[in-house]
């Protein structure tokens, strides 16, 4: 049994090395594979791979101290398969490989969702699977049409072909829907707040931190970015992103379980990332700059969310000082999500504000983007406070197994410190660094303060009514 336990952290190491060492121009041709395989690396995928491997690593460490011996082997099998799918799809450059890894991740992920075997987990699993299968089918149909239009199964050839196809809207609808299920797009998100929380905590962390991003990557590599400006699609996605960002928060603050609050927070965050996708679709000449920001956002959110999910299973120490320190370490990645200055979130928020300036985007709803981003920030922090509130209400006091300590601590350190040394995508806006944070501190801080005051007032009211 100890093999199944202790090998978990080792599994993502090769991918981590690949992410750190592979040259962005790396290609691997596998002509005998499926319909002709092509794997490789580029800047966008490098960031995705880095985040994904890192998150599976810290979650794997955490799992060592989390899992019980019961059904450990089964968990190991599904963990390994899901991990392979999640990492493999990132380096896939051809349709069949990408779709294979994506499906592997989806179907093996079911094993993680229902692992606990409770009625609740099985129910969540059913919803997960039903929606995932529908998503897979939409992706299949979309891929068939796109690659038929392109006359090729190489992913890079799809966007121009989709852009020029006379059935562009249908292909885009299918791909947006199919990958949207994974990305938690509003209306397609129902499975997410059910499935992410019922999984064992390390699995929740990768589901919400890494696997959700696979849907986003699916969009980025198949939709016709940089080919034609599609303001209509931009408008639609702005609306969906706004509904996700604000609606996710509105539903999330009423949840009573910490992990469910975090799942809604993921929907909300994916809504914000959808705004970026909207901008990139609507303004084709901006897409490269926006992609860099998407990658940055993905890295930031994945690490922060991973740390938050892992902290939900930590016990608090008994000593007063240690307790406060622990609270701080748990809260900081959350505050980072809301863009507290000198966190990864601040960098992501500033960069996002920069590329989504209405002046650079020419489509009707673009002028609402700054407002939406600010509202999104407030919504994000409300959810974080709600998470801390529910977590504190149910938190146990006591010691944590070493694996949990190490996993959670490395996730938190990655999110707060290591982030600054990780390779970030090139082409980011200049004024998102430390000096910009000082100069623009107020613009970052006031939404934080507003949300904190709101949360504090609500908390007081709730206490008084008791």
């Amino acid at each position, binding site marked *: 049994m100890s093999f199944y336990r202790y090998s978990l952290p080792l599994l993502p190491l090769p991918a981590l090395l690949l992410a750190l060492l592979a040259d962005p121009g790396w290609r691997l041709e596998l002509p005998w*594979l499926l319909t002709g395989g092509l794997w490789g690396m580029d800047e966008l995928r490098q960031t995705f791979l880095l985040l994904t491997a890192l998150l599976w690593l810290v979650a794997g460490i955490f799992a060592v101290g989390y899992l019980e011996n019961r059904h450990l082997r089964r968990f190991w099998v599904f963990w390994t398969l899901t991990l392979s799918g999640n990492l493999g799809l990132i380096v896939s450059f051809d349709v069949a490989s990408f779709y294979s890894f994506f499906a592997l991740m989806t179907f093996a992920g079911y094993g993680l969702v229902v692992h606990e075997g409770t009625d609740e987990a099985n129910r969540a699993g059913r919803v997960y699977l039903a929606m995932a299968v529908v998503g897979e089918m939409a992706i299949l149909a979309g891929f068939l049409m796109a690659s038929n239009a392109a006359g090729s199964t190489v992913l890079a050839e799809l966007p121009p072909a989709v852009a020029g196809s006379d059935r562009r809207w249908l292909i885009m609808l299918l791909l947006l829907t199919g990958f949207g299920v994974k990305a938690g797009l509003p209306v397609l998100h129902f499975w997410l707040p059910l499935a992410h929380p019922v999984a064992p905590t390390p699995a929740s962390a990768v589901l919400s931190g890494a696997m959700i991003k696979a849907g986003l990557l699916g969009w980025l590599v198949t939709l016709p970015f940089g080919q034609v400006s599609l303001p209509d699609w931009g408008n639609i996605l702005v609306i969906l992103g706004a509904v996700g960002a604000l609606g996710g928060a509105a539903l999330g603050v009423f949840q009573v379980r910490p992990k469910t609050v975090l799942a809604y927070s993921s929907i909300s965050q994916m809504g914000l990332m959808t705004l970026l996708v909207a901008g990139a679709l609507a303004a084709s000449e901006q897409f490269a700059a926006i992609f860099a920001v998407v990658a940055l956002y993905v890295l930031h959110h994945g690490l922060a969310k991973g740390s938050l999910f892992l902290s939900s299973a930590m016990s608090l120490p008994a000593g007063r000082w240690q307790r406060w320190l622990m609270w701080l370490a748990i809260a900081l990645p959350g505050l980072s999500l809301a863009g507290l200055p000198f966190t990864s979130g601040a960098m992501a928020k500033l960069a996002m504000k920069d590329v989504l300036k209405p002046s650079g985007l020419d489509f009707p709803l673009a002028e609402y983007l700054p407002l939406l981003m600010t509202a999104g920030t407030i919504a994000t922090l409300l959810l974080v406070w709600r998470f801390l509130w529910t977590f504190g209400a149910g938190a146990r006091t006591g010691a944590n197994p070493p694996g949990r300590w190490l996993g959670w601590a490395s996730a938190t350190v990655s999110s707060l410190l290591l982030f600054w040394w990780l390779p970030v995508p090139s082409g980011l806006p200049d004024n998102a660094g430390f000096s910009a944070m000082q100069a623009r501190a107020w613009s970052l801080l006031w939404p934080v303060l507003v949300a904190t005051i709101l949360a504090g007032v609500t908390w007081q009211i709730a206490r008084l009514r008791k």
Partner: protein
Amino acid sequence: MTTGVLLPVLALMTSLLASVVIFALPERMHGVRVLINLGAAGLKLVLVGVMIWGIAQGREYEVAFEMLPGLRFVLRADALSMLFAGLSGVLWLLTTIYAVGYLEDSPNRSRFFGFFSLCVASTTGVALAGNLFTFFLFYEMLTLSTYPLVVHRGTEKALKAGRNYIIYTLTGGAVLLLAIAWLHGLVGDLPFQAGGHFADVEEALHGPLTIIFVLLIAGLGVKAALVPLHGWLPQAMVAPAPVSALLHAVAVVKAGAFGIVRVVFEVYGVSAAHALGLLSGLAVVAAFTIIYGSVRALYQVDLKKRLAFSTISQVSYIVLGLCLLGPVGVAGGLVHLVHQGIMKITLFFCAGNYAETLGIHRIDELDGAGRRMPATSVAFTLGAFGMIGAPPLAGFITKWKMGSGALTVGMDWVVVVLVVSSLLNAAYFLPVVHRLWFAEQRTPWPQERRWGRLETSAWLIWPPMVTTVFLVLAGLLAAMPFSPLNWAGLIVMREVAL
């Protein structure tokens, strides 16, 4: 030249002779029988392998002689024959191994294996037949040799299913004979040939040819289980598991589908059949069968019955593929002849293992079986995912090729059929997979047998393991030379003439 004549005859004779010898052997000579069975199956595999290699190099294998004036008996190995003969050769060997383990200590094994070999000989004949007359001979021989296998258990239920089976298939055979005779009277003996015979046929023949086509398809459609001619198939699953496996994967349903392939490609020709407006009708029937079979499968509580309805659905993929008019889609349909075979035989092997080891027949008894029988359950899971069309397994290649082919020729509705069918496949297979791995065993197994450290008899484990490897590799390595897909492409290039 001599090997050109000899090889197809030998390939046929190996199973035929094995059958005769086995009938002659006394019941108790178990070891000798197993030896003859496996020896013949192995030998045939070698012969088919040699022919496949030769055909890839462009060699020809043909035997023909006149039985009656104007009525020729033709055995000919072409790329299409080899697709079917290769499948039946490989699966015969595996099913024989499986059957030896499955029927351990049961009575009448001599009779069983005799007819079993005869059935495979008929399949080989169907594959190698060079004209409709020869095809018909072996097609009927197949009916007669499978009947004793279906009723092998001798129970009331088995006899009833057998009666049903023989009524359906003999009626189908009669219709087929009528159509062949009519065609013969109309235009004489037609050897199967690339591109068919009716590329430019006079107007006066259009009417009769249309009716004959409908009759041919109706006759063949009984075995291929096209709705509404499918009634015999779900009942016939009372047969022992190896028989169901063979019936569903190669022998009977495939003989029907293969006959339809021959008629469309090499008697009528795709373009002629299309010009006569026959293919759209066939496509609609196939599409309806695909959906109907899947919907019915959803409602079955018996595992083998669910698999049977799934077969009805899946075999029609092949028929639908023929109607896709373009090389890609047609190759997708053809390759499913092999893909469906290896996937379905895997599933039936597994169903047999559950029944034989744990006494499980109903789906709700499978709770927790994955823990007790991991190897079998892995095979079942992969087979099920293959059927759903999940990449990178064999079924995905079929769906991908058929889908691309359909889009290329503007038959977009086929993609809808594929998607709906996949959704239904997922709906009736995934709950079974969930039970295997994630449900806790609630009641003791209905009838458990133990085989020491192994989960079940080694004879029963290995065949599904091998077919599982096949169904993974057929998808994963689809772009390799001699993969089923590659071979289907060769057939399209050489024989379909699109």
